[in-house]
């Protein structure tokens, strides 16, 4: 379709990927790393796939790129959610400067029979 739009989408996607991976290395905690890396890299890869669609138009490659983008947009947040829940159950501690842990409070309320005590 338009190669210039494809190049612009590739540049945006590459920058999102790079910043997401820098966040994966630099951030202090498993939950912060999961948040930075998953959101940035998912959006960056979807930008690259949309760039491939704009590069090649409505050909076989473009339609497959759109399909792959939709698939990644559905599955990657699901995997991140499962990973966050799994790592919390696994027992990874939060960073010492983290302020609140709503999931632990919900688990306490659920284990005490649905009655949540007011703090």
């Amino acid at each position, binding site marked *: 379709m338009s190669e210039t739009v*494809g190049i612009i989408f*590739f540049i945006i*996607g*590459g920058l999102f*990927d*790079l910043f*997401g*991976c*820098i966040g*994966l*290395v630099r951030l202090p905690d*498993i939950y912060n*790393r*999961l948040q930075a*890396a*998953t959101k940035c*890299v*998912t959006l*960056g*890869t979807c930008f*690259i*796939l949309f*760039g*491939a669609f704009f*590069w*090649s138009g409505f*050909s*076989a*490659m473009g339609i*497959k*790129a759109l*399909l*792959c983008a939709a*698939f*990644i947009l559905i*599955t*990657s947040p*699901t*995997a*991140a959610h*499962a*990973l966050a*829940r*799994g*790592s919390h*159950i*696994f027992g*990874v501690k939060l960073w010492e400067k983290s302020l609140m842990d709503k999931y632990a409070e919900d688990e306490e309320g659920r284990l005490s029979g649905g009655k949540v005590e007011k703090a």
Partner: protein
Amino acid sequence: MTLFIWVLVFCCFLCLYRVGAGPTPPDRTVAIDILGTLVVGICTIWAVIKGKDFYINIAIAWALLSFIGTITLAKYLEGKGFDE
């Protein structure tokens, strides 16, 4: 165009650093998940460079396998069986 390939390969090396140096097992699992998503982007740019569309098929299959692998590792971290 090969510049984008090198940027994504650099991102893959950052993920491999986190796989090697992550203090807990969920850190390594997150890095493996991100690595799978990055490989999808590399396959897409390679398909655009070469002008052949079957690299996109590899990207779709890789996204599927990466999702299933991540879900399996998350269930393993929860400590439950695979049929719950």
